[in-house]
């Protein structure tokens, strides 16, 4: 249980971070960017990506829009909102304090 929460929390953080670097990505590109930047270590589970995106969209952190791609198909791309930038800051500092705490625990042992 604790594992999923941690994963979910980090997934939000990773998505927000990716979108803050490169706005207007669609779902697959976000996933690919996370994999690329982490050197293929972190792989967002494809099944949980879209629910997470919809949740963040409903929370108002990101907004989505449909664009026409060169192939003629439509794609739904996401970008960060002002609230999302604030949320990203909060998530980052939360992550830092958590990882600091975990490191402290590991060193203690």
């Amino acid at each position, binding site marked *: 249980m604790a594992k999923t929460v941690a994963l979910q929390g980090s997934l939000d953080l990773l998505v927000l971070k990716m979108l803050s670097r490169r706005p207007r990505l669609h779902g697959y590109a976000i996933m690919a960017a996370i994999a690329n930047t982490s050197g293929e270590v972190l792989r967002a589970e494809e*099944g949980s990506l879209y629910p997470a995106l919809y949740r963040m969209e409903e929370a108002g952190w990101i907004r989505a829009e449909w664009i026409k791609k060169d192939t003629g198909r439509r794609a739904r791309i996401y970008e960060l909102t002002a609230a999302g930038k604030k949320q990203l800051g909060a998530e980052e500092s939360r992550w830092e304090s958590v990882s600091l705490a975990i490191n402290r625990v590991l060193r203690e042992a």
Partner: protein
Amino acid sequence: MSVWSRISNAVRGGRLNREIEEELQAHIEEAIASGRDPDEARRTFGSILRQREAGHSIRVAGWLESLLADVRFGWRQLWLNRVTSAAAVLSLALGIGSCVAAFRLIDALLWRPLPISGASRLFVLSRKLIGPEGKPIEDRYWATPDFKLMRDAVKDQADLIAISEADRTDITLSTDDDMEKANVVYVSGNMFPLFGLEPALGRLLAPADDRGRSLAPYAVLSWDYWNHRFGRDPHILGRSLHIGDQTFEIIGVGPRDFTGTETGTVTDIFLPLSMNGLATQDNVTWHHTFLMLKPGVSPATALKPLRQHLSAVSRTFELECSTCLRGMTPASIDRYLNKKLVINPAGAGISDLQKDYRRSLGILGLLAALVLLIACVNVANMMTAQAAARSQEMALRISIGAGRRRLVQLILSQSALLALFASVLGAFFAAWSAPFVLSLINPPDNPARLALPADWRVLLFGFGLIILIVLILGLIPALRASAVRPVTALKGGEDPHSPRRLMRGAIALQIAFCVLVLFLSSLFVASFQRLENRPLGFSTDRLLLLETVAGKGQLPVVWNQTAEALRAVPGVNSVAISGWPLLGRIMINSDISINGAPPSPTSAFFLNVSPGWFSTMKIPLVSGRNFRPQDASPGAAIVNETFAKTFFPGQDPIGRTFERGANQPLNTIVGVTPDVPYHDLREPSRAVFYVPFDEIDDKSAPRAVGFVTFVLHTDARNPLALANSLRQLIAQRNNGLRVSNITTQLDLVRDQTIRERLIAMLAAFFAAVALLLAGIGLYAVLNYSVLQRRREIGIRMAIGSTRAGIVRIVTFEAFLMIALGGCAGVALGFGAARSVESLFYQVKATDADMIALPACAILLTTLVATLPAVLRALRTDPTEILRAE
């Protein structure tokens, strides 16, 4: 933003699903395009359907989506049975509309606070005493000197305000010479400031204007009068208006909403109390006295000591008043002084209209509510039947995991849909019917006027009503449906009789309400018919009445000459003069003293008439002779039969004499006429005497007369056709006479029955609707029960039951319920009738035909309503039924 998007997503659920699916597909295509193996990509992604469901539930408001689904489902159910649904909506709409309309009228007349500050602190003073006819009466009128004493006595706790009743007064405006009527009210100068009212123009009356007769000749117009008579002319200030011999200067216009304190009448002109000559008279009670508590004074504790204080002050005034008790017998003095001062809330204003229509409107409200209840029972029955038919569906829903709350929501949303449609229709009905009913209260001289705004009070009432209806309609079927036990229901139903038992109870209830409505209606309709067909004893045919005034009075000879001139007009058959018309607003009584004895306890009413009056009115003489032109008053008198019976029992009245009060000149009775109604169609015969129109004083000099009514018999069927030319003819004679009002005797008689006609008409309407609805309800329940029992009936027929036996099975229970409901309805009817007895005329609740009529109507309706079900039962084909099983 997000709540809104979730709500809007719920409304377009299908499109959302397509979008999510498109996005997910695009993801997989990207994956394949970036070089991944298609199968592997699909496998890692997982089930698209599950992903879509997960995404969907995040992006929509779930409660709303299920509600929408229920509403859609409810709509489909209603649409499936659209004929029954339409009937249900129509009957509910009629019920809701009637209830809301009744509420609007009752609220506007009785409950709505006046648009003043501190309406809740406003009270009115009146006195309860035993009237001259031995009945308890409430006297709401006060003498101004008494008012001033009381005002000064309690000025620390409360303010007293004097306001007269609106009086249709002849006024002349400076610019044109024509006389017109306006509602004039005299108020004490503290009224406007205490009510917290601000002028729309100029200034309002102030306490400083209470200075005395002719010292403050100022008039304030009401906004309504300024609007409709002067078109909101801003230059109205400073113009003058004339009433009798007084001239007033218009100094201001009142605030927009304020139309006076007399609910149902719109005041046109406010004048200072002290400008009325009556204000200095000790023995004339003529205006209302309102009491306004100071802010912060609690009514609960303050009113009792105030009442005692005021009562003591007023009693002292009356004991010391030298003119008040003059000429009264000891018995009547005792009665006069022995009265109780009462303080009643007056935040909604006070008026005769309230007094006259309080009970009538209450009854109409009751009838409307009963019709609504009957409609509700009908619709609830319909829904119970439908729910019973759906018990298998409900069982299935429960089996696959539907929560009980969800099932209740499913059924409640259907009844809410019904109520919603019905309330929209009902709102239109109420918007039309409330002003329509008000317009029926329309004495031509003074039609009732009430503001009927559709504001939050009405909305709140309507909203509460809808909630109530939804609960009545939906709750029982909803609870029944949710209590379904899946196992038994799927096996073929637990107790097939249980919905029928409920519906049978509903029939009894419905019939009880219906009988109550019919019973009350027949009482009101019979009252009206008897009043309308009451023998008058005089003719109303082609009689035109010219109410004519002469400012400072004119000698009888001038009036008689004018009558002669009117007689010469082509189309006029005969002309007579009376002091005032029969059945008009005026009634004047006089003490009667026989042979110099002190006045008798009962007084008699009188009328001055010219010699031709009896023949013009077609009132015959029972004995004696008519007046002659040389007769004068005092001198000759003609009395009615009740007068003769009361004052000369068992004797021939001709040639006997009476005096009008002790030590007055003698009147000799020269003739006797039959009784005719004098002032009120409903009252029992009063003792009435007629005296010649020509009056002389103690020195035998003719006495001037200020107002008379010319009674004209015309050739034309519509006497009003002559009205304008006669008005001009009188004005052209330049002898100071002016026509102040023109009406017909027929209209005066009709005005007497306005209230009765209104109640009878609406009660008959409600009775017809109630009967129709009850008939439909009965038909539906019986029909349903026959359908349900097809199997049983088929088996009974197969084993040899007779047709009579089948009919008995089908109808017995229904008739039992009808008998039960009918008895309950009549019992309720007796109770209700007792509380409104005062509205009946020569009709008693215990009259046999008053019960027989509703009973017959119900019986007939029952027969018609049961016939289709009985026929259907008899046509049941046992072989077919048994084969189907």
